[in-house]
């Protein structure tokens, strides 16, 4: 059997043309719409100015130093128990004992026979 290749080619081309062809009105409408669009630049990457970068780094470093200093001075970072460094008792008493007690190393000042009703004792 001999295929009518020439005829087949013509029909295929005609079909393709019909499929791809656009209505002239639709074409120009689309054209006008695109022509009216404003040109827009693609957004440039946001870059922090160098001055801010260095300022931020300096501020962070300074703050870290200050926080470390405050933490050390306040004694909040130290380990061990609480302590009683000195005491003065303003009334008559028999004896005073300072101890460290318990697993948690609490500091305890116990005053025996404190006379809270007595006149105030002079402190030298």
């Amino acid at each position, binding site marked *: 059997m001999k295929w009518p290749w020439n005829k087949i080619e013509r029909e295929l081309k005609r079909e393709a043309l019909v499929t791809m062809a656009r209505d002239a009105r639709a074409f120009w409408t689309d054209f006008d719409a695109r022509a009216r669009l404003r040109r827009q630049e693609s957004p440039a990457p946001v870059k922090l100015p160098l001055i801010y970068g260095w300022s931020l780094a300096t*501020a962070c470093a300074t703050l870290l130093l200050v926080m470390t200093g405050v933490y050390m001075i306040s*004694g*909040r970072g*130290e380990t061990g128990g609480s*302590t009683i460094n*000195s005491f003065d008792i*303003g009334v008559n008493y028999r004896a005073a004992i300072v101890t460290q007690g318990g697993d948690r190393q609490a*500091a305890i000042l116990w005053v025996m026979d*404190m006379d*809270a009703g007595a006149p105030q004792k002079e402190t030298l």
Partner: protein
Amino acid sequence: MKNAALFTAILAGMLTASTAMAGGTLSIRLVEASNSGSGGAAGLGDVIDVLKSNVPGYSQFTLIASGSKSLPADGSSIVVGKYQIMCKGNQKELSIEVSSGHKHLLSVTASLRDGIPVIFGGLPSDKGKHVLVFVAQ
């Protein structure tokens, strides 16, 4: 402009964090040690073991009054029960003065660690002894 606002916000946040880190709270509790009654240890859960093992001769510990001050303390007084308590300084070097009425009873300089109490005991009371418990957090 946007970056400046961000920068300021970050700085403000860090400053707030450092302030919160620097300051603590000092809790002050007045406890009555006695051998009478069957009072529980309400409000003393964190220190009851220390009190029981280090305050001999008393079996009951009752919370009478409490108060708190922010650290570092500014030297102002707080009334806890019948005692006026003046605190000054930071947690590492805290001056505490205890008075009752117009009588100066005690002056103590102490270093407090977080959550570890400093206890003053032996203050006379009707049923036994008064104990002052200081805890910094």
